[in-house]
């Protein structure tokens, strides 16, 4: 539904985006990752038409991005705020009207969301009377109120307590189920693993990784396992099948971290060990997104 092609954005001496291309499929939750200053915000600002690219194109549902698409995109920036002196209800209403909703329709929807997120008595409150977490809720409602097809959330969970973060997470999943596509910009990897279907990693203005979360994870499998057993086994006997990376002795048990030799399978390991020891546990060591992120970013430098 969103196709970003060869975007270049230059700021004086600094190139913020260098030939970045992305494909965001309909109904997916897309994670846009990268360290601070990598160019994520620049890219989002181009998608939300806050700025324009120097070269390259963006297509929204097959059409070149234009002003009509503004009302189909909801954007929750990382640096977000509200008018301090304005009443909450009035404020969301104003933001919704700017997105093209009628006063009547917007009021109806605000009431719905206020009820859903337990904010019923907030209408007349002023922003300065709300806590930061409460303000985030208001901003979230303002972002999704016009029922955008594409919702871009930049660090959506920063500032939320765990309870509210969970509420918002569930709302995101529910909206996603109803068909909304999300772009999720963050460097909090645990939320990426929980929510994202697909990720792209931007570093030093370039895209350095792009793929579905399961795909990326499987390419980062290193055939490494944790194996725990009771009994005695001379590890040298299995050297043809695996190499031992780490070894621990725990109360009569031995735990080893092994990496398979090329062409070997984990079954071979079990066959070799079973006659001698009793196997307690076998786990594949799967890299977390965090590991992949750090690995990728470090290797590029």
């Amino acid at each position, binding site marked *: 539904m969103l196709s970003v092609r060869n975007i270049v954005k230059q700021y*004086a001496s600094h190139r913020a985006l260098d030939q970045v291309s992305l494909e965001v499929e309909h109904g997916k939750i897309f994670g846009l990752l990268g360290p601070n200053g990598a160019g994520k915000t620049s890219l989002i600002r181009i998608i939300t038409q806050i700025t324009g690219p120097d070269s390259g194109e963006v297509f929204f549902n097959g059409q070149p991005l234009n002003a009509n698409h503004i009302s189909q995109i909801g954007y929750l920036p990382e640096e977000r*705020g509200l008018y301090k002196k304005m009443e909450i209800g009035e404020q969301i209403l104003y*933001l919704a009207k700017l997105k093209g909703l009628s006063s009547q329709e917007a009021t109806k929807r605000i009431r719905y969301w206020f009820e859903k997120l337990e904010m019923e008595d907030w209408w007349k409150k002023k922003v300065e009377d709300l806590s930061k977490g409460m303000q985030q809720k208001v901003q979230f409602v303002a972002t999704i109120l016009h029922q955008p097809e594409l919702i871009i959330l930049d660090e959506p969970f920063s500032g939320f307590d765990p309870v509210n973060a969970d509420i918002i997470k569930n709302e995101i999943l529910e909206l996603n189920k109803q068909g909304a596509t999300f772009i999720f910009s963050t460097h909090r990897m645990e939320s990426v693993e929980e929510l994202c279907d697909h990720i792209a990693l931007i570093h030093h203005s370039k895209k350095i990784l792009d793929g579905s979360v399961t795909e990326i994870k499987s390419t980062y499998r290193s055939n490494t396992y944790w194996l725990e057993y009771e009994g005695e086994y001379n590890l040298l006997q299995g050297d043809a099948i695996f190499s031992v990376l780490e070894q621990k002795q725990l109360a009569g048990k031995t735990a080893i971290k092994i990496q398979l030799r090329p062409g070997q399978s984990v079954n071979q390991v079990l066959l070799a060990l079973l006659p001698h020891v009793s196997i307690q546990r076998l786990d594949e060591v799967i890299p977390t997104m965090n590991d992949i992120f750090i690995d990728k970013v470090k290797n590029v430098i």
Partner: protein
Amino acid sequence: MNKTLLIIEREYMSRVKKKSFIVMTILGPLIIALFYGLIIYFSIQGVTGTNNKIAVVNDNKTLTEQLVSNKNIQYDYVKKPLVEMKKSLKGSGYDYVLYLPEFALDKPEGIQILGEKQAGLNLSGKISDQIEELIRNQKLKESGLTQENVDKLKSSVDINVKKITETGADEDSSAGASTIIAYVAGILMFMFIMLYGIQVMRGVIEEKTSRIIEVMISSVKPFQLMMGKIIGIALVGLTQFILWIVLTTAISTVAVKAFVSEDDFKESTKVEQSVGKSAAASAMQDNPISKIQKSMANLEVGKIVTVFLFFFVGGYLFYSALYAAIGSAVDSETETQQFMLPVMMPLFLGYALSLSVVTNDPYGSIAFWLSMIPFTSPIAMMVRLPYGVPDWQLALSMIILIVGFIGTVWVAAKIYRVGILMYGKKTNFKEMIKWFSYKN
């Protein structure tokens, strides 16, 4: 356009609903009316109120003519010696004792005015004027002129300032009233541009510091946001100005009636009649009501108000765009100083020069240029207007101002769209110039 309207609406409503706006709107005219009323009250009191009774002890044999009483001072020649008058002044009903000793006409020394209170500068000045006149008359008589001839020498001059209009007819004008109106218009213009220009800047900074700006510009174009803010605040200014005019007129009318009772008017006329013709003429000049009323009739008030509104809106747009650009380039109000100076300077300069040079020489070349350059024209033109400005100059100045504000809006928009997204960076002029080269 629809979005700009929404922004204008919010900017307007959020300000008009503020308590400070309501308080200022009501308090402003009250203060103006109070001043207006007080000035009139005191000047009328000055004309009719204080009446000094003065006992004159004349030991001078050469001054045969007596001091003539007027509306403020009543002279009574007493036959008692000075020492006795000094003792009995309290309770005698006299405010002061004036002592005229024997002196040579060439050397009038030893004249004293005594009283429980010290006689004010104004009073002693008036008395000394009158004594000087007595002495002069006496000298003239001694040189051989008859009393009749001395009287003939007196003449009262009342200059009637008239201006020839383009049609050739002459119309009454009063330089004094023109100056007053010029000052008031100049000060108001300066105040409005400053006040509301800075409100635009504050508004932009507020949006930046609260980070609502990021949310806003994902819905609207920076230009729409800037123009919406500028226009919204302009409407607030106009609303306040119009409310002030309406309220001031209403309150002033009431205030004038309350301060200046019918009796005061009657009394002042009575005194004028009794004092004689020349005094009456001077009283007429001293009376600010008749003066202002007279010249108000001559000046085209409708034209002044219309032109004021135009130059207010034009001057405000011209400057507020610059203020918006400044607001966008900084993170907090404390950082604005370095940018404020170059924007404030021409405004201050225009203000200072308008109230000095232009009021002195409203048709001179400095006045002309100040009223053409858009940085100073809103104030300078308002100051010139009451003295009369050729229509072509007015039109030219207006056109230049319109071109000027299109220019500043264009410049400001370029800085604004970059500036609003810059946080935590110290901006300088070099940086701002760089922003110009950025493509949207």
